[in-house]
């Protein structure tokens, strides 16, 4: 299963949810489908995408929040699963794309390579109630639809191959992304939607 395919499957459902993605391939693959004002690309600070998502979810309970994480990133912040479980925001979906590789920095093996470390088991052990691990597109699609319909915190671990886009680059400055993402969310209060 390819991560790009998973993101493509979700994309039509990502018009309204607040989406926070990790750096590198995941960010690029989402951007390549077409940037939206409700997307925030965390191009550094590895590990913190789920924490940003938690901060959003707790303070915007009426909005659906979706985090794209990776095995390399989430390994840098395993405590996040315990904090997510403790506060259990019902509007948060935490998707961990596990490609068993530090792909964006040269494809080094990660702790999850060859199934040594089981991220779904870590999430369950941390106390997250709704955790699923999937490795084919149909199962991923079903897990995503179920999470979207569920009124509870969901973690989806998606086993994907270690491939990414051939070209990287965005016509979007980091601060520009942050300012516009915030402005979009403030606009939700006024019911005006995205700021052009």
């Amino acid at each position, binding site marked *: 299963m390819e991560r790009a395919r998973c993101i493509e499957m979700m994309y039509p459902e990502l018009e309204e949810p607040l989406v926070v993605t990790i750096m590198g391939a995941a960010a690029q693959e989402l951007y390549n489908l077409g940037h939206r004002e409700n997307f925030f690309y965390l191009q550094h600070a590895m590990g913190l995408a789920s*924490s940003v998502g938690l901060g959003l979810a707790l303070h915007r309970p009426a909005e659906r929040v979706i985090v794209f994480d990776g095995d390399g990133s989430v390994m840098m912040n395993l405590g996040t699963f315990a904090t997510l479980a403790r506060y259990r925001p019902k509007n948060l979906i935490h998707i961990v794309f596990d490609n068993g590789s530090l792909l964006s920095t040269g494809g080094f093996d990660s702790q999850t390579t060859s199934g040594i470390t089981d991220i779904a088991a870590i999430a369950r052990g941390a106390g997250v109630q709704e955790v699923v691990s999937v490795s084919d597109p149909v199962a991923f699609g079903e897990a995503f639809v179920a999470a979207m319909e569920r009124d509870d915190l969901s973690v989806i671990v998606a086993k994907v191959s270690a491939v990414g886009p051939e070209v990287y680059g965005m016509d979007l400055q980091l601060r520009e992304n942050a300012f516009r993402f915030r402005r979009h969310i403030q606009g939700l*209060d006024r019911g005006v939607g995205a700021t052009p």
Partner: protein
Amino acid sequence: MTVSYDNSKTIFEGIKAAGIRSASALPETWLGLLLQRAEDDPDFDLVQVAKEEEAIGIAAGAHFAGTPHVLLMQNHGFLAAINGIVSLAQLYGLPLCMLIAFRGHWGEPYPWHTRGGIVTEEVLRALGIPFEYARDPNQVARQIREAWTFSQSSLSPVALLLTRELMED
């Protein structure tokens, strides 16, 4: 040494008077009474993290959400959060209002706190984070309000160091 009950109350009331109703924190001795108040207050949201760097992400999320948010941590927690401060808050121009228990400095009896205390100010300077010292309970509410205001106008992390003078009786 006992943690100041009155000044913990004054700090919490100062946070609320600044219009802040949300905090992320990792418990530490000097912050204990303050966090207890935050937890017991039905009008206040407290997120306790497993490691302080998480709080930088949560603060970013709160900022995007438009909710005034403060971070409460020990200086060693600040040291543990540096990559998030640099590569999230500073990189993206996000404000952080950090109230930091300044352990390991003048009067510190515990050896394990000392090295972190000695380097804290220099690390703050190296990172270009403006900071002030909170020593006087009559000034601390104003200092919190000013720290908050400055974080918002500068879109930068700012730190208010909670000193022994303020935190211990």
